[in-house]
């Protein structure tokens, strides 16, 4: 099984024969320890630190289907290097486009994404409800919005409902994490407090994980249904991320804060922006990876599958919907 590698430290990545060689730079910027990563072990690379590389490395990565995702100092996703598309399916592409341009087909799919997302985030709230946190009012309110989903007949309306659901959900967060943190409202670009910073970082990891999986299927990552297809974003990954954020990101936030794996002094505040310090980023990435590798017994496949693989299965279901084989049912945590 190929793995995702996260590069935090500055260094040089190069091709060495048929394997990858990583030379870390020390504080003076001088080459230090050398590590080797067998290419067949690498699924993709996430680059957070400054990386030196040349085109022969990218040719090598491209030939082996390894993508590289880049993030800036503030952990924003800035772009990806993707190998030449190796899975092209014209008929699927035509279908995907038609499902976007037809108002009825598009809204049917968009609604599924919101439904799946709402189901999974309610699951989180119910879990904490059963452990004595009082979030009953939030659950009721969200259920009210969910009941309205079938009557929304335009995508902006759905987005509005989705916004309300999220807002209600976030307003319950203060009851689920230690009292050191107050969520207030969701702020992005920049996130203004600790919870928002964690959430932005986690969502970004989730988005990239979805993109990586879409990339290994024939779906076109730029044609989306709930989110408006953007010219600068792989917006289909945003659609899929909606479904998986409650399981992959929100639960991670509760865990690292409640287990105090991350503490208030793991954040830096500067100029109205809150950023995770480097060791904290590593913690989040480690927990996120553990989560992606965690397996569940799949009901219909009768085999154990990892969370990461669940994202790919979601791509298969979407493909089947687009090819008019089987109606898409969003992933709903069944345990």
């Amino acid at each position: 099984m190929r793995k995702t590698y996260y590069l935090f430290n500055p260094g040089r990545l190069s091709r060495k024969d048929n394997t990858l060689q990583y030379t870390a730079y020390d504080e003076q910027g001088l080459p230090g320890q050398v590590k080797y990563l067998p290419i067949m072990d690498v699924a993709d690379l996430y680059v957070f630190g400054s990386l030196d590389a040349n085109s022969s490395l990218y040719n090598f990565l491209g030939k082996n289907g390894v993508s590289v995702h880049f993030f800036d100092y503030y952990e924003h996703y800035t772009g990806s290097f993707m190998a030449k598309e190796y899975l092209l399916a014209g008929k699927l592409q035509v279908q995907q486009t038609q499902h976007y341009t037809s108002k009825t087909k598009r809204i049917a799919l968009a609604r599924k994404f919101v439904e799946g997302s709402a189901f999974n985030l309610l699951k989180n709230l119910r879990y904490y409800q059963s452990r004595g946190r009082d979030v009953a009012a939030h659950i009721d309110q969200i259920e009210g919005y969910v009941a309205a989903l079938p009557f929304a007949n335009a995508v902006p309306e759905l987005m509005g409902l989705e916004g309300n659901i999220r807002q209600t959900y976030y307003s319950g967060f203060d009851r689920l994490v230690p009292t050191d943190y107050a969520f207030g409202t969701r702020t992005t670009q920049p996130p203004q407090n600790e919870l928002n910073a964690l959430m932005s970082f986690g969502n970004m990891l989730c988005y990239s994980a979805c993109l990586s999986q879409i990339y290994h299927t024939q779906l076109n990552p730029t044609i989306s249904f709930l989110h408006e297809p953007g010219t600068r974003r792989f917006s289909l990954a945003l659609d899929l991320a909606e479904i998986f954020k409650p399981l992959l990101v929100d639960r991670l936030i509760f865990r690292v804060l409640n287990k105090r794996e991350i503490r208030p002094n793991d954040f830096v505040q500067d100029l109205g922006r809150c950023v995770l310090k480097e060791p904290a980023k590593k913690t989040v990435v480690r927990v996120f990876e553990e989560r992606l590798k965690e397996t569940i017994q799949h009901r219909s496949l009768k085999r154990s599958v990892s969370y990461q693989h669940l994202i790919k299965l979601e791509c298969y279901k979407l493909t089947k919907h687009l090819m008019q084989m089987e109606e898409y049912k969003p992933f709903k945590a069944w345990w």
Partner: protein
Amino acid sequence: MRTITATHVKYYHVCHRKLWLFDRDLWMEHTSEAVAGGELLHQTAYPQRAERYKEVSIGGSKIDFYDPHRRVIHEIKTSQKLEESHIAQLKYYLWLLEEAGVEGPTALLEYPKLRQTLAVALTPADRADIPQWLTRIQQLQSDNTPCPPTINKPFCRQCSYYEFCYVGE
């Protein structure tokens, strides 16, 4: 008319749904360990195989090992599990060669891991059947043909499309 390859013929004898999906470029092989294993076997099974064997492209299909002097096709497979489809694939190669004017070609199906080989020949009955296979494959390739249902066979679990077909909810 779309091209028909030997892979189409092989899948036609395994699962029509697989053929339908494969024909629409919905490939799963890139994720399959079984396929990677087969490729490795192909590269390593007969290191001493002589130079006289050629790779031949014919009618949109590719024969990996063909000996033009003795007019013998060699085809390497991992296991006998889907032998019928392997035989069909070879018969299709033989038929293509005959159509191209090669006289009396023969074929050998090789299972190096089982240390077994099997000779395959084209019978008059096959010569009548093959055009029928091709007609049916063309039907499945048509845009109006919906995807055939899953076949629920025990070998589905080994197929690279298993998760695609049976993922359900």
